[in-house]
């Protein structure tokens, strides 16, 4: 271990001499405070906080990831190119120890930088209301919707299988299938019908209502309220872009007189296409974690109101503190740093510095748009099924999926990143993918010639 530590310390010193490392550090020290007090978001305190933390964490993540790629590649390729490796590897140090030391040094430096800059972001974020002289109302809003970590529960998915089959038969008998769906396969038609039926189930025609049922809502002890987050979609947009809605929230399984939890009846007017939140006391939730939410489409609206099955309706409730959530989100960046450090060392074990950096940048940026890439290749699946299934798909799955663990996706909506989800990410990214890459790097580096032949 002492040999690994010696290499790690030397690696850190080596990286700190890189001008690009200095540039990144200076950039972050200057930009983060400027962003903190210069970004206005939508003008509200919550908007400012969301913009700052979102961009701050994203910028920190981007720069530290790039620095990790460059540093991990430089530290190994430089030793080989400048031949310091001759004097190191001929000492009693195994090649795997050298790689481990380099990895340790790169990750340790990245971790310290992450600690410094995430602490800076956190400090600015929590002190911002004080510096901006925000109103009590704004502070209360940010307390509920930003300085918290809320779990979300989506409504139970209704089974639409029978409805879909009936609709398909009906269309088939009437001979409308080909006319409507043209040359689509049965599977594709069924999928489209399923989406259609689901949307119907979460739509309210004029004068009718939609009912959602939620289970397993467990607000943290001492929580003041829960939040019904919704977004209207309409068939015909009203002139003022507003929808009147009647909302009934509580436990609907018993007659009203027997209900021992709170039931809340609200009427409100909200704009279309934007997410809104209704806060109700936490006692609306039954002891077994059940909650029903009903929306009544007031006839005055004169349009069908729809709630997207994806993000049209969900329940949010406080499940942890802002600090704990912030720490876990920052640790997601650490996961990215570890993965990229291993990738960099693997690339450096057989490629020259420019080529290795290029390869790692390709991995990094494709990992940042992995969902798009996976969807694109799913579409290609039709033509090259076998190749896709056995070659391309495993390769794509092995690529990092950074866009799924973007810090902003958790911090901006104050969405909790549970330890369970965090450890799942760690397991996949570090204990499976990174370890496999590290193993390959050790194999390659362990067998390659470190000297050049001079004749």
């Amino acid at each position: 271990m002492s040999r690994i530590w010696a290499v790690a310390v030397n690696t850190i010193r080596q990286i700190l001499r890189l001008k690009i490392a200095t540039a990144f550090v200076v950039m972050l020290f200057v930009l983060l405070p400027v962003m903190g007090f210069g970004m206005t978001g939508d003008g509200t305190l919550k908007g400012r906080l969301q913009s700052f933390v979102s961009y701050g964490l994203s910028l920190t993540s981007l720069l530290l990831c790039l620095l990790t790629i460059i540093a991990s590649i430089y530290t190994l390729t430089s030793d080989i190119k400048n031949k310091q490796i001759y004097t190191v590897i001929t000492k009693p140090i195994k090649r795997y120890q050298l790689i481990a030391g380099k990895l340790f040094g790169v990750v340790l430096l990245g971790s310290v930088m992450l600690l410094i800059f995430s602490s800076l972001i956190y400090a600015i974020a929590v002190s911002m209301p004080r510096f901006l002289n925000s109103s009590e109302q704004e502070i209360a809003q940010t307390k509920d919707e930003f300085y918290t970590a809320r779990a979300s529960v989506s409504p139970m998915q209704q089974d639409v299988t029978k409805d879909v089959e009936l609709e398909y038969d009906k269309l088939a008998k009437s001979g409308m299938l080909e006319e409507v769906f043209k040359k689509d396969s049965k599977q594709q038609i069924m999928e489209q019908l399923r989406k259609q039926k689901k949307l119907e189930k979460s739509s309210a025609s004029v004068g009718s209502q939609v009912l959602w049922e939620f289970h397993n809502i467990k607000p943290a002890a001492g929580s003041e309220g829960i939040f019904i987050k919704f977004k209207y979609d309409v068939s015909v947009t009203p002139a003022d872009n507003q929808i009147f809605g009647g909302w009934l929230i509580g436990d609907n399984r018993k007659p009203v007189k027997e209900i021992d939890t709170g039931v809340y009846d609200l009427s409100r007017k909200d704009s279309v296409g934007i997410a809104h939140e209704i806060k109700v006391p936490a006692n609306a939730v039954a002891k077994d974690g059940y909650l029903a939410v009903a929306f009544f489409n007031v006839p005055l609206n004169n349009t069908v109101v729809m709630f997207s099955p994806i993000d049209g309706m969900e329940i949010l409730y406080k499940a942890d503190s802002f600090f704990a959530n912030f720490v876990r989100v920052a640790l997601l960046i650490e996961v990215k740093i570890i993965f990229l450090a291993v990738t960099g060392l693997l690339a450096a074990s057989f490629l020259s510095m420019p080529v290795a950096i290029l390869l790692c940048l390709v991995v990094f940026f494709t990992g940042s748009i992995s969902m798009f890439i996976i969807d694109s290749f799913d579409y290609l699946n039709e033509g090259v099924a076998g190749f896709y299934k056995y070659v391309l798909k495993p390769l794509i799955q092995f690529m990092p999926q950074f866009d799924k663990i973007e810090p902003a996706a958790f911090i901006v909506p104050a969405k909790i990143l549970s330890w369970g989800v965090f450890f799942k990410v760690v397991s996949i990214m570090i204990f499976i993918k990174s370890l496999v890459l590290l193993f390959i790097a050790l194999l390659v580096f362990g067998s390659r010639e470190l000297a050049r032949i001079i004749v």
Partner: protein
Amino acid sequence: MKYAVETISLTKVFSDWWGRRKVNAVDNLNLKIKTNEVFGLLGPNGSGKTTTIKMILGLLNPTKGHSIVLGGKSTDPKINTRIGFLPEESYLYQYLNARETLNFYAKLFKLPAKTRKDRIESLLDMVGLKAVANRPVGMFSKGMARRIGLAQALINDPDLLILDEPTTGLDPIGTRQIKDLIIQLAKRGKTIILCSHLLADVEDVCDRISILYGCKIQAMGKVGELLKHTDKKQIITSNLISEEALAKIRGIIEAEGQACEISSPMDKLESFFIRTVADAQKHLKFTSGAVSTTEIGSFLTADAGKEVLEKLVSETAAEDKPVETSKAESIKPVETDQALLSDLTQTSEPIKSKAVVKTETVEPTNVPDAVEEDILDELVGKKRPVETEITKKADVSGDGANE
């Protein structure tokens, strides 16, 4: 363990990117380097010396054959704990200073903190870099970098020391110091492989040599045996001998029908240079470069409890002792510095005293001239025409009586 290093059919073929065989770097090399031997690996540029060393150390994979180092594989940490290696250039981390550099390498050997500290200070002292120990090695001259490179090779007190062109870039004092160090280490039972094309360096210290050319061994054997002139004899005496006695000797030899040449032997330029610098050091002349104390690290000497081994260069100069760097079987010291200095500083009036004649047979060699040439070339940065021993003697003393 009879052999410290043994190579069996060691072969390295250089292939191009497509894997096509291009150049034979080393071909079927069978070396047997005995334990406690100073072995010289000689050859012109591109003869495969460095490639051989790199294969022995595991930096290159042999195309065919293998090597056994200290009874095992050189890549095994148990084995390379006992190896010290100085590559053809001192490849050091430019941002570390001299002390940090040695500390880094010492940590790779897991040396205890106290031992580490002691050895580092001792080595810094030995290579004359103590005064600049906190200067980044990136700011070192080539010779200074070479010195710290040597120090890192010695940090573990190795049983096998592999030195690839160790004297490149070094001043004559440093060169001399390395040669003396090699001799001292050999006395302690260490094995040393010296890879060089500076023949004088190799000749002065090596027990055996091997000459590589065209990827193969062209000659191998003891230095004395390889260099011996079996058809010539040499008589050495002090310069107090009278002209009459010399004439008699000449007459006896010529009476047997043999040719006879009488001249004064030359001191080595190396010795003269070292004396000059040592004098300057005595007068505390400032230098921003390396200051050669010329003491060997105490942990490297035969008896660690004793004082540092005899001071090599400065003491030599101070006491005006003859230079005795060579093996007994190859070169014998022929004259004391005191005698030469007297010749140089006093009048040409002959000194009347009883001649102490010491006559012995030694093997003459041409190589010392080569040494002087090399050092001079380094000093003046150009080539000089080769001078005969007699001519040089005449230039220095102006005394043509012996010609």
